[in-house]
């Protein structure tokens, strides 16, 4: 399932709650926490005995890994640390806007700065604003890559000559704001802007770590010149006339350590899907395509660039995969493990979010462009022209914000879902025709799930007027022609129902009560608690041949993929972005916390009785 990013009032509130809790829960330590938190036993996840995963590497992400043998047996003397900037004083500086080089004649005391930022985070996008601070002012720099990229931000600006630190970044659509503390600013180093010169600061990388975010200067990754030329054609002409000068001052520490570990832990799993032959694909950040073979082993394929992969499907040739990436490009992974980029130059500027190949050999691609999710068709990926086949609108509501749109692969074609008025548009490959249906009562849809047998399960928008305070769970087995509303196990519903392989209904939930999964074996008449080991925001994925999967996020930023061998009662580890050891430690700590809470509740109940 591929969903256009949404923000509504509830999303904003949840984000604020999350950010608030993160700020409270993670006070800044003086130094990076090298030692892991104490492991606490707790039966949450039964480990799989010999499941080979891409994270089965010697070191978990938290530990520094030497990247080269020491040249001398004697340890080198410790390098002097760069001075930390006065972060408090920065806050009191005037906040000014940094203008693009294309919008300004360079003053005598001004220079130009340019850098890229790759974010190892599928939930977010590239930051909208990056704030840099000198000793006299702060400047906000905005990206020029909007419309091309999600997790790759390209930033360029004219700044007064001087020395700057990176002060903060913000994703203002997702309501995320990250301040760089003194340790981060000092460790990253400062950069100089020189009069009449152009400083290329290279590529920065931002990645989640347990309870915090890490930022580093990449030694390995460069942003291609053509990306800059496409994003800022006028600005690049200005820069071409300027001499290079000014860069980072001071050496960032352990960059190689940072990068090696970053490579091991791409965040992903947003678009997990199963191919007809049982293989599973999970496009991920940093150009990694995670592939689960039919025998259950995971492997990782690497794209030519570390840009996030958004959606993947089977390619035209045997053993080939195609994954959408940034910048109107896709990556073709060949059966021999090599990969190449293909430019989707025949498409308009927009965000490509979904691709599929019909049995007739035609490519279908859905792109967010001009306020709509539009489906295009071409015979080859590098076609000079893509024909628009149909579209659904991305709309807004006076009452509760934006409405999303989804593109889904069905056994017979492609389903476009429009959140507003619950419109389902099913395109059949065989007839090349659309069938349009609305959800009963034209209810607005907030999320959609597609089962392997073609059953579509949706959750309606909450707060839909009188008697519609809570979301409703509906299913259709004919792409919207007939709908059935089902009673569910939770009053407050956060995800659509999932129909398991044996026909049972499953739902994750528990906003105000015990979180977990409930099951109904009688079409929703009665519900039983199946497990309490999963949090409310868990997403369930029912595959055709590989059973039931759960995708959940832990410590706010890490993805964990679990698989249930018994329809949801027990779960085993499959994959996570920080490796098995790290994630099991976190899961055990979480289980312990849950057990302590349950014990406290039981004690209180006993006392009450």
């Amino acid at each position, binding site marked *: 399932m591929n969903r256009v990013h949404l923000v509504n009032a509830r999303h904003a509130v949840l984000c604020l709650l999350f950010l608030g809790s993160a700020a409270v829960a993670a006070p800044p330590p003086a130094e990076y926490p090298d030692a892991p938190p104490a492991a606490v036993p707790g039966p949450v996840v039964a480990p799989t005995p010999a499941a080979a995963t891409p994270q089965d590497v010697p070191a978990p992400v938290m530990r520094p890994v030497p990247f080269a043998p020491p040249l001398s047996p004697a340890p080198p003397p410790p390098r002097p640390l760069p001075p930390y900037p006065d972060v408090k004083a920065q806050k009191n500086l005037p906040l000014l806007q940094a*203008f693009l080089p294309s919008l300004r004649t360079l003053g005598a005391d001004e220079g130009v700065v340019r850098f890229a930022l790759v974010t190892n985070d599928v939930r977010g996008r590239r930051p909208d604003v990056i704030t840099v601070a000198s000793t006299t002012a702060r400047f906000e720099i905005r990206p020029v890559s909007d419309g091309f990229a999600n997790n790759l931000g390209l930033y360029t600006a004219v700044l007064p000559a001087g020395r700057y630190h990176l002060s903060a970044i913000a994703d203002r659509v997702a309501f995320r704001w990250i301040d760089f*503390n003194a340790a981060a600013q000092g460790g990253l180093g400062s950069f100089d802007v020189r009069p009449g010169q152009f400083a290329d600061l290279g590529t920065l990388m931002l990645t989640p770590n347990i309870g915090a975010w890490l930022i580093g200067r990449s030694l390995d990754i460069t942003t291609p010149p053509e990306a800059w030329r496409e994003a800022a*054609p006028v600005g690049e002409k200005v820069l071409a006339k300027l001499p290079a000068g000014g860069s980072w001052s001071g050496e960032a520490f352990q960059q190689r350590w940072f990068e090696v570990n970053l490579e091991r832990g791409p965040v992903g799993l947003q678009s997990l899907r199963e191919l007809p032959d049982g293989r599973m694909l999970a496009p991920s950040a940093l150009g990694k395509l995670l592939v689960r073979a039919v025998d259950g082993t995971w492997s990782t394929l690497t794209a030519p660039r570390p840009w996030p992969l958004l959606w993947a499907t089977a390619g035209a040739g045997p053993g080939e995969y195609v994954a959408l990436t940034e910048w109107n490009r896709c990556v073709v992974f060949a059966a021999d493990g090599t990969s190449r980029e293909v430019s989707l130059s025949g498409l308009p500027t927009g965000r490509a979010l979904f691709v599929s190949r019909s049995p007739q050999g035609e490519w279908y691609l859905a792109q967010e462009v001009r306020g709509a999710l539009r489906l295009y068709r071409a015979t080859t990926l590098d076609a000079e022209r893509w024909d628009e086949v149909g579209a659904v609108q991305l709309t807004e509501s006076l009452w509760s914000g934006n409405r999303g749109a989804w593109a889904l692969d069905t056994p017979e074609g492609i389903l476009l879902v429009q959140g507003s008025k619950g419109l389902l548009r099913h395109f059949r490959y065989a007839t090349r025709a659309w069938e349009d249906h609305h959800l009963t009562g034209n209810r607005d849809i907030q999320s959609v799930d597609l089962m392997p047998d073609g059953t579509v399960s949706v959750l309606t928008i909450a707060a839909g007027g009188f008697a519609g305070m809570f979301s409703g769970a509906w299913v259709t087995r004919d792409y919207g022609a007939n709908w059935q509303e089902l009673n569910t196990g939770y009053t407050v519903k956060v995800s659509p129902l999932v129909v398991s392989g044996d026909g049972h209904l499953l739902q994750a939930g528990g906003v105000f009560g015990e979180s977990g999964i409930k099951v109904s074996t009688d079409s929703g008449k009665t519900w039983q608690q199946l497990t309490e080991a999963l949090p409310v925001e868990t997403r369930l994925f029912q595959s055709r041949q590989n059973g039931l999967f759960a995708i959940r996020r832990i410590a706010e930023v890490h993805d964990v993929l679990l698989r249930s061998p018994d329809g949801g009662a027990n779960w085993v580890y499959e994959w996570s972005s920080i490796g098995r050891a790290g994630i099991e430690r976190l899961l055990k700590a979480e289980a312990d916390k849950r057990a302590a809470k349950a014990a406290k509740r039981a004690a209180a109940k006993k006392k009450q009785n």
Partner: protein
Amino acid sequence: MNLRSLRYWLPLLAALCSAGCATPFYDAKTAGPQIETALGLAPGSVAFHAACQFGQAGRVNRATEFFPAACAADAERLYVVEWDEAKKAYRAGMDVPFAALESASYYKGLFDEVQLPIDGGVLSLLTGKAQPLHAYLVARGVKDVPSAGEVLARAPPAPTTIYVYIPR
């Protein structure tokens, strides 16, 4: 003009208030000479100036925060100047010759905008004098193209922060 969600109306209303109230630095009688001083222009060369809110939106996501400023134009160039509260003076911001402007669009809505295509998206000047400004630009050879739609005002970010570490 379409009805927009509360999320967009409220910042837009705030922008309306700020257009009149949040640019106290702008005084139509004195702004001309002040802008000329800030930009190093000859006295009397600024032919047009107005209080404005400017915002830089992306190609796809046509929503952004707006900032109080003043826009001005002389015979050859369009300027946007910010107010530097510390120095109590205008600060040069945008400075583009008309010949370098690809096009200019006028959007008529609750708040009129002049929209200019720029690297990365669109620059919107939200001002009560949008129509005269647009006409001024077109009269000086800037191509007039229809607006692709409103650039929406976005609320400022949540004040909550989380912290970033780097390995040491």
